[in-house]
Each structure stands twice: as C-alpha cells, then as structure tokens.
C-alpha cells in the first residue's frame, strides 16, 4: 500500500461530482509515479462505485448516516478508511467537504496537509505541492515528507476526463465505525438555491462587480452600464454577502460557474474562489486599481484606471 493515492469522493447521492473525477485523474498519474494504485473512498450508496471506473480500488463505507454529506459522519468514515488503507497521499477538493475534513484528518491521522493546491508532483517517493495563498497573490512550494500526506486541491486544477475511466475497480468494504450510531449532529433539511430573477449562466456578456464598488449606492453606477448594454449584473461573493445584489448573481466556487463570450470585472481582485467560476469565459476584461491583483493573471485585457472613472465613460460610449 506504500504508494497508493486515495481520493475522497463527493456526490449528491446520485452523481459523483466533477471535482472527484478531476482528483481521480491526478491520483492515477501520482500513483503511477509512486508505484501504487489509485483508490477512491466512497461514503454512502455503494452502487455509485459503478461511476468510478477510473479507480483501481473503491473503498466503500455504507451506512444510513452517510447517505448525505454530514461532517461528523464523513470524518468518522474517513478516519476508519485511513487506518485500514494507509495511503501515501489523500486528495480532496477544496469544496465544502474538503474544508471540513482535510485539516481534521491532518490532526487525527497525523499527516501534513497542503491547502489550496494547484499543482502536485511525485518522484522517487517525494511529493511536492504548489499551493495558493493570500488570495492567489503568492504561491508556496510545499514538501510533503514522510509516509502520509493530504492535499486539498482547488477545483478545476485537473481535467475531469482523465478520471472518468471505464474499468471495473475492485470494491473493498470497510465496516462502518460504531460512532456513526451516536453522532452529535444531524441533518434537518436541505434547501435548494433560490431560483433566478435572471440567469447569469446563459448571458453572452456579463458586467461583474466586486468589493471595489464600496457601497450599495455605487452599485447603481454599474447597473447603469448593465442597462446600457442590456445585460445582467453579476458579482463576487462579498457584494452578495453585503446584500447589495441577490445570491443568484454570485459568480464563483460557492456561486455559479459562468462562461460568457465576455466578462467585464470591476473591482474584483481575482481570488481563487472567484476565478473558479469565470476563468473559462472567452474574453475577460478586468478593471482594478491594484496592478498586482491576481485577476490580471486570467484576464485577456486589463486596466488600472479607477472604476469610478471608467464605468461612466463606458456607459456613455455604449449607451443607446
């Protein structure tokens, strides 16, 4: 088991997530370099193993408490699987489950963890992770020495296709730990995201606004540009959290993924969680007064002109 790479599967009870396939594709390459195999830890419905043909082994823990994601239940199942499988490396995504489970496993399983990883290399038993910090402004190259390690990988880092094999992995069952019957938390209800006033995922052109806008009143300024162009406003998370625009307009990891023909970003720094939602737009034009803002690393065109000068000028040019 020395060089095995284990992926924590994410699913909604029916479908394995894309993020899982992204990780599985990476796990296959890393396991090959480490002389081990690619394993997937699948918690909940065992029949989902049929969607994991890209794995060599599916390690399954099935128990009613694991039917839906529940942090404490997943943590117990993961602890049991790690004790039984002793992988060299565990991969999880930086989505909700990864943010819950990764760092807890680092303590429980006594393994170094690299957070927000965008690159992984393995050679001669050594694992090196490149991780984003400070909103993507700095990258850190991290050695993960020893016999075990955990990497939380940023969504979209690897292509999903490489993890979607058509093999028939061996399914290994791990007994549900007894603790699953006396959990200290329970799922009360699941709420679907609110329906859209507008659907920003189908727009050809999006005008998007970030915290640089400073206040709800100022959002009006950008709204005038949106109106002039006849396109909806989208936003980064802080603008939505502040209540300046509805949740349906949020672009990013915990919002919507958009792929318009053009994305105009005003006062958005380009944090990794925002980029996850828009980096595939055909054309990205960013306005940010900080020349070091990470948004300029994904934008095709950029400007450091103040948005409060640029937006009215654009509205005037493009208004009908």
């Amino acid at each position, binding site marked *: 088991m020395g060089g095995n790479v284990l992926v924590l599967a994410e699913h909604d009870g029916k479908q394995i997530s894309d993020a899982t396939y992204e990780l599985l594709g990476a796990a296959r390459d890393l396991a090959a370099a480490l002389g081990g195999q690619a394993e997937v830890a699948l918690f909940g419905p065992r029949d989902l193993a049929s969607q994991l043909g890209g794995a060599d082994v599916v390690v399954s823990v099935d128990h009613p408490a694991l039917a839906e994601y529940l*942090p404490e239940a997943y943590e117990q199942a993961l602890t049991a699987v790690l004790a039984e499988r002793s992988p060299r490396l565990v991969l999880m995504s930086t989505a909700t489950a990864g943010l*819950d489970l990764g760092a807890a496993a680092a303590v429980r399983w006594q393994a170094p963890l690299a957070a927000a990883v965008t690159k992984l290399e393995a050679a001669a038993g050594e694992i090196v992770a490149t991780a984003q910090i400070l909103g993507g402004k700095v990258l850190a190259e991290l050695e993960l020495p020893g016999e075990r390690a955990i990497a939380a990988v940023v969504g979209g880092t690897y292509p999903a296709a490489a993890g979607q094999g058509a093999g028939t992995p061996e399914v290994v069952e791990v007994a549900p730990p007894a603790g699953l019957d006396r959990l200290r938390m329970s799922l009360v209800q699941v709420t679907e*995201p609110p329906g859209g006033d507008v659907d920003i995922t189908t727009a050809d052109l999006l005008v998007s606004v970030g915290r640089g806008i400073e206040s709800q009143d100022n959002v009006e300024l950008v709204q005038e540009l949106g109106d002039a162009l006849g396109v909806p406003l989208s936003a980064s998370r802080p603008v939505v959290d502040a209540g300046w625009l509805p949740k349906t307009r949020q672009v990013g990891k915990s919002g919507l993924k958009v792929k318009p023909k053009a994305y105009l970003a005003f006062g958005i720094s380009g944090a990794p969680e925002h980029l996850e939602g828009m980096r595939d737009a055909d054309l990205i034009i960013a306005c940010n007064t900080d020349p070091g803002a990470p948004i300029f690393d*994904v934008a095709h065109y950029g400007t450091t002109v103040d948005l409060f000068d640029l937006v009215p000028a654009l509205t005037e040019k493009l208004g009908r």
Partner: protein
Amino acid sequence: MRIVVLMKAVPDLVEEIELTADETGIDREFLKFVVSEWDAQALEEALLIKDAAGADVVAVGLASDPDIDQALYTALAKGADSAVKVTGGEETMLTGDRAALLAGYLAAEPADLVMTGVQAADDIDGQLPPMLAAHLGQPHVSVVVAVEAANGGVTVRQEFAGGLVHELAVQLPAVIGVQAARQAPRYAPITRIRQAMQAGGLREVTAAAATAAPAPTVRRMFRPEQASHAQMLTGSADDVATAIADLLRDRGLVKG
C-alpha cells in the same frame, strides 16, 4: 452560553506582498495587518446569537499576532463581553501551531461554542476550525452561513457549491467555521474603539500547546508566473473605455 470567537491577523491583501530574502516566507515587517475577514464574519454571527438569545461572547487572539490588540478592542467595541490574548507561542501563520496553542487555551477555559472564520488568506497547512475541533474531540461544521441557538445546541446552515444549503442540528460543545454572517458585520465607531482601549481590559492567558499535526515544509514562495498576464489598456478613462467598446464591438457583443 460561552462563545469564543477566534481572531487572526492577516496581511492586508491590498498591500504589496514582499517575500523574505530566502524566499520561504512573507516579509511581515512592513506589512499592514488586518483581522481576517471571515473572523469578522464569525464575530458578527456570534453577536447576533447574543442579541437574540443571550450569550457571553469572548474574543480571543494570539498575543504574537501583529496588531492583535486593535482587533480585540474593536471586537469589544462591537459588543464582545471580554477579550483574551493567548501567550505561550511564537509568532506563526501556520494553522497547525495555532490550533495546538488554542486547543491548550480552550482546555483551560472551555467554550460551549467556538466560532471562527472558515479560512484565513494565509492558510498554508489547512483551516483552523476542523484542526482545533480534532484536538478538542468536538464536532465541527465549516462553510457556515447562519448559526442560531436551539434546543440546548445550535442549528447551523452549511453551504455547498451553487448555493445548496444543509441545515444541521449540532450538539454543544462544537466548533463552527463561518463563511458569512446573516448580516454584514456591524460597524464600531472609532470613539467606542478608543473607549475600549482606554478601559484596557485585554486579559492575557498563557496556554500550553497540544501536540501539533506535522506541517509541510516550505521549499520556496514565489509570485504566480505572469506568462498569461493581461494586456494592459492605458491612457485616460475615456481612452480605455474606447478600447473596451471596440473589443466588444469586434465580437458583436454590442450594437453600433
């Protein structure tokens, strides 16, 4: 209910970030430090619980963090009942070390509920809430967008990609990683922060750290390669507006 809110000072991202000479760390000397934005959200949510159901809210920071006094006085000005500076550790941005020290503090002065930010911008080795909870042997939930007292425990809303939300009933004691409070963090007038400072009242507590999880080794830090850097449009706002309008017209995205 005793709610401990953990606050971390992080580099202000608007500032230019310099690396240390050996390029294995952030040069902290000339940086401006601010409270991690998610910790500010956690404090707001704790104060909302206090407003609704009553609670003893304690703001806690590490004495070794730059400008932590300012952060704790601000928390007091916003409505925290008391504030604690934990001593006993070296200055560190590593979550592993911080979790181990804070676990020591919380063993000595236990909380019913620990609330802190879901992450901090300079987390290299993982996020604080689950690490701390693992040390304490307590249940934890991260990426939380609401916490309310209910039935002797708390009800929390945990958010997933796309805005799907799970409502969970959680027994206490527990650790919650807050993504966003139910409302924007309240504002503390500068006069009230000054009053808090004049009153003093930050209590120092020396903690004995638990055994930290192993940390990754930083080989080097660097700025992302600028290979795909945007082509910069310069000139006056009017020049830039003209250039952008042309780009959109060329692609048939605007009329005229």
